[in-house]
């Protein structure tokens, strides 16, 4: 859960998604500013932390980068339990990974924290030629399910910081702060996402 101490917030964030969707790559881009072509498949889950400043508050993300490998699915609750936020990642060039993402959303809705801020990331947006999942389709799905949606690229860094900043802003404790930061988000999420996250 997000917990605050005078505008210093610790927020547990979990990344879920299919093998190879780019969860680790997104985290490494966000935390270390790096990208590697041959990112090894994650074992269990890796832990990172990164602090962002949003509207005069600091949010310290405690990030769980989980493994997409099938054998770890049943253990996912161990990582998303108590999370304030989740990024569900799919690969825009892989339809199966989008289907898998929907399953994660369902699971989180059924088991997770109802106040959890959920983001849907259509990753590898640099691979336009290989696109299999239309962004309209994902956008519609996200709206219907109270998620906010961005297409990201860990490779080019497009929308990577943005998705984390957007989550930070939506964390319940920050809802009071009236002024959104000056950042312009292309895929501004629907109302419903706000209602889902402001009941604290």
């Amino acid at each position, binding site marked *: 859960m997000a917990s605050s101490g005078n505008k210093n917030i610790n927020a547990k964030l979990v990344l879920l998604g299919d*093998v190879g969707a780019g969860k680790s790559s997104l985290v490494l881009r966000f935390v270390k500013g790096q990208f590697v072509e041959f990112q090894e498949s994650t*074992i*269990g889950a*890796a832990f990172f932390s990164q602090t962002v400043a949003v509207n005069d508050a600091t949010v310290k993300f405690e990030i769980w980068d989980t493994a997409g490998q099938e*054998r770890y699915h049943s*253990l996912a609750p161990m990582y998303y339990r108590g999370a304030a936020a989740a990024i569900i990642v799919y690969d825009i060039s892989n339809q199966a990974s989008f289907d898998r993402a929907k399953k994660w959303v369902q699971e989180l809705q059924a088991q997770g924290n109802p106040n959890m801020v959920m983001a849907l990331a259509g990753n590898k947006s640099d691979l336009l030629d290989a696109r299999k999942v239309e962004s309209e389709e994902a956008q519609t799905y996200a709206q219907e399910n109270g998620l906010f949606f961005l297409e990201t690229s860990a490779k080019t860094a497009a929308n990577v910081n943005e998705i984390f900043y957007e989550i930070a802003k939506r964390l319940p404790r920050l809802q009071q702060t009236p002024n959104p930061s000056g950042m312009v988000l292309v895929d501004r999420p629907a109302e419903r996402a706000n209602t889902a996250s402001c009941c604290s």
Partner: protein
Amino acid sequence: MSSRSPTTTLDDEEEALEEEAESPVQLNAINGSFSEEIVAEGDDDFVEDQHFESNSKAESSGVNEEISYTWRNVPEIDEVERPLSPGSSGYAGEMGSTSGGDEINDDDEDNSDIREVEFDGVSGSQSQWVSGKRHADEDDASVSWRKRKKHFFILSHSGKPIYSRYGDEHKLAGFSATLQAIISFVENGGDRVNLVRAGKHQVVFLVKGPIYLVCISCTEEPYESLKGQLELLHGQMILILTKSVNRCFEKNPKFDMTSLLGGTDAVFSSLIHSFSWNPATFLHAYSCLPLACATRQAAASILQDVAGSGVLFALLMCKHKVISLVSAQKASLHPDDILLLSNFIMSSESFRTSESFSPICLPRYNPMAFLYAYVHYFDIDTYLILLTTSSDAFYHLKDCRIRIESVLLNSNVLSEVQRSLVDGGMHIEDLLVEPTSRAGAVSSHLGQPRPGVSAPGRMADGFVGGIGGPAGLWHFIYRSIYLDQYVSSEFSSPINSLRQQKRLYRAYQKLYSSMHDKGIGPHKTQFRRDENYGRSFLFYPVALRMN
């Protein structure tokens, strides 16, 4: 042998192809009556067995024995090969120099076409080479696949491929089904197939419930060694999945397990590679990084501290060697579990990125349940593993790690570890030379820092003399049964080339298995001679009975 990094792989002998183009095995003589065939001594071209059995009727392998093996040269040595460059056992160095001239030249000429295939597979980054599956393009129809010297397969009792060392599992469905047919044919006759010999090839089978493991090899390793390797391979799978994976087969006999092992090719290939360089794989013992006593105690006491607080096992490791190891109360850690755990961690690049918390099963501790492993690398070689039964202990373990790290830094343990790595273990030339240097050398293993000047001197001696240590001693391994540990000297001149090192390794392996062979042994004292390449070695395995 301990100096070889697990990343030197290209020189694997079994990685090389056989000379003759010949299918691995003619599996045709099936009559339901296979029985174990213990390796016949005569057919070994490497070590001529000339046993001088001082006590061949020795009591059934005594528990109170301590064994050491030594390898001496006999005087007629004249050939000195190029010594290893000092950096050749370095982690990064090995990765970059896997094609080191030595091995290529050593290998059979007619492999050259296949070699190219290997290099093609390697192109790309160096780390890719170790991690990825090799020769994935091959299948049982490929000539190169058939010529591989050592295959490992895991398959399900319904014949579905689970793992293959070479080639794509899915393309090997037909081959898998054949192996399954052999096993079940014999089983239907109320028997069990352990070993099939076909020319130079041995086909070793191991049945573990619904999971079958098969090794096809023409490396002339003893049956017992190959079987032990299959056991370890199975253990590695249990470490990743637990034995409860067997239940999947109860529900659905045709269950496809490959998806459950996704991303673990590197784990298996590095384990298989270790069968050809890491004595721990047949000694069932672990080895410690040489460190000063005070240094190790500093590490042990902080690990002991955290072990009191809900940590089941705490291990501080440097590569595959133990720096310190602490267990809570009555729990004990089997050396094979240490081997499999460290192999898993070192071969999974994922652990190096940050701290991780992952389910892991220790097959010898409890094959049915996961433990949770907190893993953190302090530097490129040194890592901490904290194992717990509690799935929500992460933050606690993270705090433990922070405490441990600060103690290790304050007491210079990490820098001592790096120093020990650079020093490179125990050198035979340091032993028994003269009273003064002897004291220094012996204590360097026991822990006192090696005097700085001795290192260059030692190397020079080795190069010039070319005859190893005093009294013609070239190499030794000592295994303590009480401690489950072994100590071995580093390779030094004249055992310089990787090929020679591997031959020595194989000889130890063979010796060990013959000493523990209930069929013809145990032979407590043996004398073996190796006259390959115009050289004679004498092998003195020494079994010391204490009491």
